[in-house]
């Protein structure tokens, strides 16, 4: 573990997070969040999504700005490639969730990070989505994330950061466990 007394700053306000954890333990209702996005079809496989509002702490909340995302498919799928594919958004979600978690855990454990870089790869047999072979699933066969981390810590301490980040990651949970999905048409 890093020496105590040395100021560690990964840009994470751990006191605020721990304070929130304490407050929400006492008020479990406030811990119920709803995350939202809206998605509009543009043309072909191109869609435009926005993220602005969400619900949490018992009230409607807002990001400081509206975030915009274009999704499409590459030209080899006869698409116009106006954005990343939806499955790549899933990879981005997983990698950014794990990476944020690493920073938070490192801050909490007093470990100074200098650089954290993840590369992530999802393997997929597209015979599934093309309906060629019904034994092949649509989604990833497996996802591999590789981290390069430079930090004031031993190799095992760094591995423990990455392990703890998986344990507490929402997207990791979403990807590794089933979720009921309800899609309705109004």
């Amino acid at each position, binding site marked *: 573990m890093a020496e105590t007394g040395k100021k560690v700053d990964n840009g994470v306000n751990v006191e605020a997070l721990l304070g929130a954890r304490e407050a929400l333990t006492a008020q479990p209702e406030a811990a119920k969040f709803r995350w939202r996005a809206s998605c509009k079809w543009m043309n072909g496989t191109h869609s435009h999504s926005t993220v602005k509002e969400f619900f949490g702490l018992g009230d409607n909340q807002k990001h400081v700005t509206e975030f915009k995302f274009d999704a499409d498919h590459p030209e080899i799928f006869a698409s116009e490639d106006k954005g990343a594919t939806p499955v790549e958004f899933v990879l981005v979600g997983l990698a950014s969730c794990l990476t944020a978690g690493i920073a938070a855990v490192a801050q909490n454990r007093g470990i100074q990070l200098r650089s954290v870089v993840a590369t992530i790869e999802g393997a997929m047999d597209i015979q599934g989505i093309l309906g060629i072979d019904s034994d092949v699933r649509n989604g990833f066969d497996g996802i591999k994330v590789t981290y390069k981390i430079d930090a004031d810590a031993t190799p*095992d301490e760094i*591995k*423990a950061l990455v392990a703890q980040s*998986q344990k507490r990651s929402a997207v*990791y949970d979403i990807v590794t*466990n089933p979720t009921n999905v309800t899609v309705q048409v109004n």
Partner: protein
Amino acid sequence: MGAPLRAIDVVVIGAGHAGLAMSRCLSERGIDHVVLERGEIANSWRTERWDSLHLLTPNWQSRLPGFAYEGNDPDGFRTIPETVAYIDRYAKVIDAPVKTHTKVTSVQPVDTGYQVITEERAWSCRALVVASGACNIARVPSLAAAVPARISQLTPMQYRNPSQLDQGGVLIAGASATGTQLAHEIQLSGRPVTISVGEHIRMPRLYRDRDIQWWMDASGVMDERYDHVDDIVRARKVPSLQLTGSPQRMTLDLNSLTTIGVKLIGRLAGIGDGKVQFSGSLRNQCAMSDLKMNRLLDAIDTWATENGFDGKVPAPTRLEPTRVEDSPPLGMNLNSGEIRTIIWATGFRPDYSWLGVPVLDRKGYIRHDGGVVSSPGMYLMGMPFLRRRKSTLIDGAGDDARDLSAHLESYLAGRR
């Protein structure tokens, strides 16, 4: 109530090792008390354990106030009948005022303290010690309700030995001490076992030629106090160490199970339409467990060096990392006939259905500060990490009872 009322200073509920240790400490302080026991002394050990179970701690380690091991096998592990006999003998040696077959049906707060109702009488007491155990009810996840009817379901409290099970595959949910021990003997009985692995703590039985419990005891890990750990809520939820107490002093970990043919899969994540899904988190669960084990062994090595053990015991070693196949299965059809039995080794919880004092948190556990319950004059014993890491063990009951009986005595004297 038609039943007679009797007043006494203290009622202790439960005559297991924890209640008896408290009884001994109360007697030493000259405090009038009674120990009420729903069945026989050491009742859970007599009625709720499987046949092959041995204590997870070596014989020398079950030290109770005024009572220590005197046999010739200090490094052995007691069988369940031996454990029952040990606790029974302790009750006699300390002359504990136990009333057996006296089931407490209700405890209510009253002006003078507590009223404890049993089938034949009511007791009125100023102080109350709850030592009714941490493992009264086997936890079964709600997804058990979706298991097809053709599959038998069992908890470790109902399990006695493999011959009870149909021939055919067995799915064991949970890979702590209970799940791994059951997986081992059931696989060896010829029934192929699949074990679902969530958070668990891997531990070698012997490390540098000594029992792991010896190292944890000697280095002070077991004496770590509840008010000195970073996160006591989490520490109290840590699963049991993956240990078994066998005459061969074998290490029982996932690698040893894989070697005899047990199949590892991730945590049970969902059951629907006769299909069970497993979490894709198996690799991380195993990696975390290896890291935690190695952190403890590193701390033991540091302590061993500082205390002059290097050269006197073999050099440090590390176990091979837990082997996980490249793509563990993520699902299984429960209607294929491959699995005939599911055993829920998913932990235990206490039963406080009789407790009418409003001291439970939203998870149904008694709120307490190191065993001192929020309701004045009420104390808790025998829960994980109650006051120290060893509170979970028979060996921890002594120090906890000494501390809490001192607190209780000042409470009765009006000093608290």
